[in-house]
């Protein structure tokens, strides 16, 4: 008799929870751009935190000013932690991450693509000091190659390129992991490693002195440019407003100044499907 009563109570509790879930979910979705809490702009730590703040503060201020909501930059100590916070902590309202991370964020945390950087493609490069005898990717055998953390897009693209060139990155050369693209570039610049692997946009954004003293010996396959997505708890109106602000940036002087500061030409609408092929890189 008691067992029957207990079973009935458990079943009732389960039903209650199931029925309550949509209500709880709806509460999250209703979070709007008019809220008083700041929106968190999550940035993948592909460069140092200081550089991230320097480069993206104008964009964040632009959004904040136009949304009339405080927007706050946040990053993570590394790619893994950034991914974990993205997937598990629901920490970022707006997500600015690498293309290959977006698919997982979309799949695991429901982030919705609202735009991407308006550039055709991007790729990783392998650079060496200009006076280096390394001329081709094949010359990297037995050398020390600096790169970003293992989950970084540059590392994944370069590993694939090395494999395609018949070089096993885990055997034929020494991959030196550095925390950021800048660190990877400066590593060979200062002679700590023989070569550096990094994405082409950070290389272009590096100081002219450093860039001019380096030589590109290889470039990887292209990937779609950086996606910008929003968290599932932001309502549609807010997401649309953010999308609209990004897409219209090049139409205003203020927006153009922000784009120029970021070395971007603009933002455009993007199809989430174009990022799905990058999931293969993470699967390797």
């Amino acid at each position, binding site marked *: 008799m008691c067992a029957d009563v207990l079973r009935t109570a458990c079943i009732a509790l389960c039903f209650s929870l199931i029925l309550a879930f949509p209500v709880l979910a709806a509460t999250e979705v209703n979070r709007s751009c008019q809220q008083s809490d*700041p929106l968190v702009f999550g940035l993948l*730590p592909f460069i*140092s*935190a*200081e550089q*991230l*703040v*320097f480069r993206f*503060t104008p964009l964040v201020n632009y959004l904040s000013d136009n949304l009339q909501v405080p927007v*706050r*930059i*946040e*990053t*993570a*100590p590394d790619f893994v*932690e950034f991914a974990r*916070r993205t997937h598990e902590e629901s*920490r970022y309202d707006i997500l600015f991450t690498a293309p290959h991370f977006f698919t997982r964020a979309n799949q695991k945390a429901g982030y919705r693509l609202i735009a991407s950087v308006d550039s055709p493609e991007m790729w990783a490069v392998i650079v060496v000091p200009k006076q280096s005898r390394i001329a081709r990717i094949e010359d990297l055998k037995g050398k020390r190659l600096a790169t970003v953390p293992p989950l970084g897009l540059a590392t994944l693209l370069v590993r694939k390129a090395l494999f395609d060139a018949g070089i096993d990155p885990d055997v034929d050369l020494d991959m030196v992991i550095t925390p950021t693209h800048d660190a990877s570039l400066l590593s060979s610049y200062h002679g700590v490693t023989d070569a550096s692997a990094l994405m082409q946009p950070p290389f272009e954004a590096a100081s002219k002195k450093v860039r001019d003293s380096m030589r590109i010996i290889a470039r990887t396959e292209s990937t779609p440019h950086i996606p910008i997505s929003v968290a599932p708890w932001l309502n549609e109106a807010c997401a649309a407003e953010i999308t609209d602000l990004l897409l219209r940036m090049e139409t205003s002087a203020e927006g153009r100044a922000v784009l120029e500061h970021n070395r971007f030409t603009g933002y455009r609408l993007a199809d989430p499907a174009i990022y799905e092929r990058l999931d293969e890189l993470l699967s390797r």
Partner: protein
Amino acid sequence: MHRKSVPLFQSLRFRLIASVVMIEIFMLSLLVWNNINIIHATHTDRLRDTASSMIQQIARTSGNYMVAVDYATLEDYLSNIIDYQELSYLVILDRDEHAEIVLGAAPTQPWPALEEHPAQVMDGVFDISEIITVSGQPMGRVLMGFSLSFMDEAIRESRTRGISIAAAEIVLTVIVTVLIGLGLTRRLGILSSAAHEVGKGDYSIRIPIETADEVGRTASAFNRMVTDVSSRTQQLEKAESQSRALLIENRNLVHTSLHVQEEERKHLARELHDELGQCITAIQADAESIRDLSRECDNRIETSASAILNVSSRIYEVVHAMMQRLRPSVLDDLGLIEAIKEELSAWQDRNPDIHMHFGVTGNLDDLDERINITLYRIVQECLTNITRHADASRVSISLSGEADSLELSVNDNGRGLKQTLPGGGLGLIGMRERAEGLAGEFTLESEEGAGVTIRVRIPLNSGERKIA
């Protein structure tokens, strides 16, 4: 050597030691006070600079961690810093002022008021804050509290050390000053006592030369000076002795001369009286006889005899006056008082406008002839001077006799004496010589316009009164 003790506050030793000690205490107190201020300022400035440096370093370092929300790594890094002994607490606040990292004995919210300088601290903890920025964007805030107890302890130690050193220095200064002062003033005391002894006439004294310093040189010079003074004093004493002997000899000579003069006068007066007087008397007797005998014979003889009588009478008067001047017979016949009265009477007749008073007290009989003639001559000289120089309207003479002395006082209300008395010096010298010839004292008191008072005091020995 006998040393006279000096009153404490007049003592050079006391003043020297007290001055040095007071100056030392004042200057050291000033120095300690200044040092304590400097130490306090140095420590507080050091703490302020250290705190400022640390918080700026932490704010700079924390920026990247704050952007990355990597509080665990930041806390790990800061946990090494919290071990710094003066650091009381460390709090990292995020952009919403939420305390993300709390290390040490942090205060509860609301956070304490911030201070600019440790000198402003009231609660013993220096609270400071710094905004964490990354590329100019605020990412949070660091709060730090520095305990002042270590600084206060260091200041206390420094202060105690400074005061101890100052106290030790004062004690040492007192000891050294006392020793130096005692040594110095002891030798000065010897010098002073020696000078005192020399002042009393002991030229045999010599100061031992202990050192070659200033006091030693002074002592050496003192010894040389005493030798010189002794030598010269001996010479002077010798010269004085000779002068005194000469003076006594001169006085004796003068006295003898006066005595001889008086004797000669007396003899001359007696001769005049005995010889010339008898002759004149005889001439007068003969002239009277001639006049009486010729009265009935020849009238011309009677006239000539009368003329001889007149001339002889005149001669007798002149001779009598000379005898009085040489030696008044009344002095020998009736004594000093009557002789002076007679002299005064004659003088009063010559100076009727001057009021004269003569007073006598005591026993003046039976005086030695030398005393009588001396006092008589002095009165005579005084009256002569008054007549010649004083232009006085009143003269008072008193003569008093005591058992062992006589005193004569002659006072007038005339012009008095100037410093230099033209032509009058010899008279005064003569009076003084006469008085001192009898071992007496002669004094003269006078102011210009206030008359002259002459006092003569003559001691009487047992043999200087005549046996009646």
